[in-house]
């Protein structure tokens, strides 16, 4: 919480925020701290994502103080950011939960960075955005266990994902500075949400294209990749011919040159 406050205070001087934003944020900070305290003390069952009116209200306040500058006070979007009607809870959970939002700086694409909000705050904002218009919901836990069919998941991954994310999920370059990020270590829930919502330049893979069970299979495949080291030894980032070729050029040819020099050199 203190981190968000300091960030906002710095930005307040640049004039990009509403003059009352700091005041609002302090208010929100007090309320959320109190609210979080109340939630933690009251019951452990608060973990479940049951949406309550309190959550929505809390989310609205968080939204107003952290997101409204770009997305508009009524979520209608501005020149700096798109409208969020119908993006659903899944989109908010992905963008905020991976640290992509709030945006650090405008650029080819939003970078992943340390997460700025607690899960409860993220859930509250997700609940608020989802309450305005229907959209993809946060996926149910049963698809996120990584216990599906890795073989089928691998086939689906090769057809739908591998061209951008690399067959081993190592990521890859797109046009004009954009890139598909590495999928190593990404939470299953975020993988699922990315497929459903199509963040930034990633296309949407809705549940009618790739069914929830098939998405679970893809997550299983990614988990398999994380759990099983490359059978061939060093995979050099799984980047394929570029990194492998560079390695051979430098170390393979280097060794050959060194041996040749040694053979031809005069003995002392």
């Amino acid at each position: 919480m203190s981190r968000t406050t300091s960030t906002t205070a710095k930005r307040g001087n640049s004039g990009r925020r509403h003059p009352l934003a700091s005041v609002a944020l302090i208010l929100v900070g007090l309320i959320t701290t109190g609210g979080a305290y109340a939630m933690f003390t009251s019951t452990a069952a608060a973990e479940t994502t049951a949406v309550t009116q309190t959550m929505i209200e809390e989310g609205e306040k968080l939204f107003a103080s952290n997101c409204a500058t770009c997305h508009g006070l009524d979520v209608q979007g501005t020149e700096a950011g798109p409208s969020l009607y119908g993006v659903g809870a899944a989109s908010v959970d992905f963008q905020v939960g991976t640290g992509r939002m709030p945006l650090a700086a405008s650029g080819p694409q939003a970078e992943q960075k340390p997460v700025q909000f607690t899960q409860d705050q993220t859930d509250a904002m997700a609940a608020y955005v989802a309450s305005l218009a229907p959209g993809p919901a946060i996926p149910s836990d049963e698809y996120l266990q990584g216990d599906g069919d890795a073989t089928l998941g691998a086939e689906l991954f090769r057809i739908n994902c591998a061209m951008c994310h690399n067959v081993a999920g190592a990521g890859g370059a797109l046009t004009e500075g954009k890139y598909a990020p590495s999928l190593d270590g990404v939470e299953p829930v975020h993988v699922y949400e990315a497929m459903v919502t199509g963040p930034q330049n990633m296309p949407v893979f809705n549940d009618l294209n790739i069914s929830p069970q098939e998405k679970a299979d893809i997550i299983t495949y990614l988990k398999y990749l994380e759990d099983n080291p490359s059978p061939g030894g060093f995979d050099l980032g799984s980047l394929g011919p570029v990194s492998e070729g560079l390695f051979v050029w430098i170390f393979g040819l280097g060794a050959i040159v060194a041996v040749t020099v040694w053979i031809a050199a005069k003995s002392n």
Partner: protein
Amino acid sequence: MAQHDTGEHADAGSALERNMPAPGTAVERSDAFVNPGLPPHRLRVTDIDPKKNKQAERRVYTLFYVSIIGSVLAVAAYAAIPIDTEGAAYVRITTALLGSAIALGLLGIGIGAIYWAKSLMRGDEIIEMRHPTRGTDETRARAVEIFELGNEESGFGRRALIRNSLIGALIATPIPAIILFRDLGPAGNPAAALEVTMWDSGTRLTRDPTGTPILASEVTLGSVYHVIPEGLLESEHKLEEKAKAAVLLMRLKPEDLNELPERTDWSYQGIVAYSKICTHVGCPVALYEQQTHHLLCPCHQSTFDVKDHCKVIFGPASRPLPQLPIAVDAEGYLVAQSGFLEPVGPSYWERS
């Protein structure tokens, strides 16, 4: 070389000298390279110091022993680590140990041999002259004699009809092979196979790899579907057909599409279908960016703009991706209006 140079310099004022290029471009000859001969022989430490000599000998046989140890270790590693089938990673340790041990075996011999030659074998420089390749005059005369005798005895030069018919027969023998092997090639015009894909009027668009048909309503905004024609999975030449017929289906906002007037009915409410085969060298173009509507080919970075009928906006491709005209059938499934109206994939010789 040096002799040749001085010979040319001698006739100054001759035609050669006058026709020489202007100074500045002419080759400077005054500092012609002189053969410096062999450098003075320098004794190695192993030649001077018997202790060092002994040390080098020890190193060489140690290297050979190391090689033996490596080879034994390779066998031991193979025997000690059982190959079971628990996942692909089990081969990691076996491969690493086998590779290191065999490398030790080979490098021990190689490095030992080179070190032996460099430090202990005879170390002074010697010149070994080339043998002349020309035979002696007697040998050459005898060879001519043998040829002439053969010609006389066989009558090869004299009996022209026999000789010429033999040459004719030799020329004719490979002809059956040419005719037979030529027929192994594709029958008819190979270009015809490239012009036609499985897409035809009414062929349903189906998902890759399941082959289930796609309802237009299932393709939400920003979606991308990897599409194969209906019936591809039952096709006899599945991979060949897929390599030509693979299609990418995308939905954009209809107002984002800048469609040519004659192609406005090729799309359905912003759903467009384009061949996935790059027009450059045929890689699958499938890196779709849903906000910029760019399609990127991963092989050579050809970039196509889906908004403008996939025209090329970057990279080596020379033609836009062919568009598949689509419609919706009575049940709401996406179907092709017709096949592709131009050949898909890279250019080829007979392509019009």
